[in-house]
């Protein structure tokens, strides 16, 4: 049986990206089609103009279909980068009973499933929607760090869950957009988590790593430690903010600022080249000007450093500061900014690199890997969900999974 074709759609603030691909048996990812279109009607990862966004999504899907010479098929997986995602660590547990219904006994497969189910039931406010519940280690009678408790003797079995949740209206509007395309949205995954799946292999996940997806409207981050996701979140600050800062700092219009950022922007201030000037071409009746490179770099540096600092604060609050041994992986459009890895290295005090998608064919991972990390990871996520041998799950279970999302990480 050939691997099923999966379509991943990322509705970003700057671009809408569609990737069609399949995950082969050797875990290699083969990209069959790429579609991209300039995003409109989306700000900070959330839809502000439904019609414009719909048009852009349709055009991206059409490009991908033409590129792959195949139809997008039944199911589309969505990455939700906006919605102010946050994560919450929660533990739930059950008492373990022996065959006479007395406390204390051997942990069975059913007990494990039951504990997972109880732990997944985390109450959320009405305006939040769960994107993922990611399983942490088990805890048997207060002893933590247990990977597989099946067969152990215990009185109580607990398991931690990292709940990644986003704003309900933001995610549901994305799904509604898919219905209008029309296409079926099978599942929505958190963009930061997808990026991590694309760029991190098992080794950095175990050693401890952070993946920061620098998007146009949002910055998503995911922190792994000991092979598990320990922290995830999203800041509604992104490349657009840098552009807006340049607009106000240098008195430029948006298009000029965007071009300037891409051509001459840098996240670090070069103290040696303080006299360097950048010429801004004449436009719309205004004569051209000359701006100092230091001014531009100071503006960008202030914003990027702040963004990294906010994430670093979150990591510190979760007590994960020393755990980033494998380093920081940057993905998304913002990772193309000059000096951004150096800045991240300073702020996080950890090695930093631009993340590259591993095990991929059909796409230039060197050139596009970081930019397409989220949809690439989304294909992996979808493939992982499909491999979960659906025939073993009861109907009710499958339904529960549909609501609560997968648990692998």
């Amino acid at each position: 049986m050939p691997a099923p074709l999966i379509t991943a759609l990322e509705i970003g603030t700057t671009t809408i990206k569609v990737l069609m691909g399949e995950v082969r048996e050797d875990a290699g990812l083969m990209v069959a089609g790429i579609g991209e279109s300039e995003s409109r009607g989306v700000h900070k990862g959330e839809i502000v103009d439904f019609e414009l966004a719909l048009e852009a999504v349709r055009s991206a899907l059409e490009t991908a279909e033409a590129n792959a010479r195949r139809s997008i098929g039944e199911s589309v997986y969505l990455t939700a980068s906006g919605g102010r995602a946050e994560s919450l660590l929660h533990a739930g547990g059950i008492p373990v009973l022996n065959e006479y219904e007395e406390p204390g006994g051997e942990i069975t497969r059913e007990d494990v499933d039951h504990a997972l189910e109880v732990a997944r039931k985390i109450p959320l406010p009405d305006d939040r929607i769960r994107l993922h519940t990611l399983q942490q280690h088990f805890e048997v009678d207060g002893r933590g760090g247990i990977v597989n408790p099946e067969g152990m003797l215990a009185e109580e079995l607990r398991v931690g869950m990292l709940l990644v949740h986003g704003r309900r209206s933001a995610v549901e509007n994305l799904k509604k957009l898919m219905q209008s395309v029309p296409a079926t949205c099978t599942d929505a995954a958190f963009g930061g988590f997808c990026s991590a799946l694309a760029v991190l292999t098992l080794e950095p996940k175990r050693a401890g790593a952070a993946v920061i997806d620098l998007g146009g409207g949002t910055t998503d981050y995911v922190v792994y430690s000991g092979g598990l996701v320990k922290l995830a979140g999203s800041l509604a600050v992104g490349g657009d903010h840098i552009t807006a800062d340049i607009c106000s700092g240098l008195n430029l219009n948006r298009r000029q600022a965007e071009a300037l950022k891409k051509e001459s922007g840098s996240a670090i201030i070069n103290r040696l080249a303080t006299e360097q000037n950048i010429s801004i071409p004449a436009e719309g009746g205004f004569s051209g000007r000359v701006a100092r490179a230091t001014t531009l770099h100071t503006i960008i540096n202030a914003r990027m450093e702040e963004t990294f600092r906010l994430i670093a604060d979150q990591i510190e609050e979760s007590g994960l500061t020393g755990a980033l041994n494998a380093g920081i992986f940057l993905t998304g459009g913002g990772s193309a900014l000059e000096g951004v890895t150096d800045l991240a290295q300073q702020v996080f005090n950890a090695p930093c690199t631009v993340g590259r998608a591993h095990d991929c064919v059909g796409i230039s991972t060197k050139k596009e890997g970081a930019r397409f990390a989220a949809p690439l990871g989304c294909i992996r996520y979808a493939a992982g969900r499909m491999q979960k041998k659906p025939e073993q799950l009861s109907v009710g279970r499958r339904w529960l999974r549909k609501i609560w999302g997968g648990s692998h990480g």
Partner: protein
Amino acid sequence: MADSPKRILVLGLGGAGCNTVARIAPGAPDGMEFAVMDCDVQTLQTCAHIENRTASGKAVTDGMSAGGDLDTGRRCAENSAGQIETLLSGIDLLMVIVGLGGGFGSGAAPVIARMARNAGAATLFFTIIPFSFEGTVTQGKAHSALRRLRTYADAIVQMPNALIQPDGDKLLADSLDRSSRTLAEGVVGLWRMLAQTGIYNLDFSSLQTMLNYCDATCRFTCATAKGKNRAGALVEALHAHPLIAGTAVLEKAPGVLIGITGGDDLKLSEIQQIIEGVAPSGETCWIKTGVTMDPSFTGGLSAIVLAAEAWKEPLVDDGHGGLKPASGEDKQAELAGVLKPRSRAFGGSERTIWKGEDLDVPAYIRRKIKLPR
């Protein structure tokens, strides 16, 4: 709380406000509270007889005036937010006398109005609008301050300087005296109305109803009369008051508040005559009357009329520096507007607020990084 009397504070803001309060205070009835605030220490020295003096923005101007700069005035007030909060704590009605068109008054008034609103005090601003000969810049500043003020103040009484000055060649001292007297009559009259329990009581909530709906602008007129036909004379004097003379404000007002003070010899027919003479003709007009008896007024009559220029839903800040009517339940809409301000630079999406910081504002501005030019 029910037993404690409502506290009313008269605050003079900026140069003109301080001077006016300094003139009013000596002749005011007992129990009236006054305070003055300015960033100019010299101004404050001239009102040494007012106990409650606040020098604002020491760190900003170092005791100098704001130099006619709105922004400096605003920063001064924001700098002394703590002092202002202390000043406003426990106040139910704040009457502010402020001369617009200068620096501190125009800049600080909106800040004070906002803080008073947060502190739960109703605000009534008596604003002195500069002469037209003071130049278009000053006039423009006064208007922009008025616009900002409308967002937060419950009511604004505009008193164009040109209207309250006497005609002809008068000494400057006389002119100033006249304008502060006009103001004093209004402020003291209103205070007396609220502070004393009348036969027909004009209480605090009626004033608040008025303030909430009057679209932040209203006019006032007041007069006293004595003698045989004192009611008729009073009505005439009310219409002849410089602030409304020659206009149809009273006739067209959608809401009026009438406060009458009389002595032991006050007659019902006189009350009727005054109300009929002053009240607008419209059927939908909102009229609230209060009558107070004060033995010291025996033989005379005094009245104050507060007339709304327009009657609208209360306005709230729409988050873009503008105003919009609160729809339906005004408190709710206002709260929502405050909690979820929209950002203009990012296509009207919700602002990114992170731990109380607005991340949509450029990072270099928030962190006060000076850009090399």
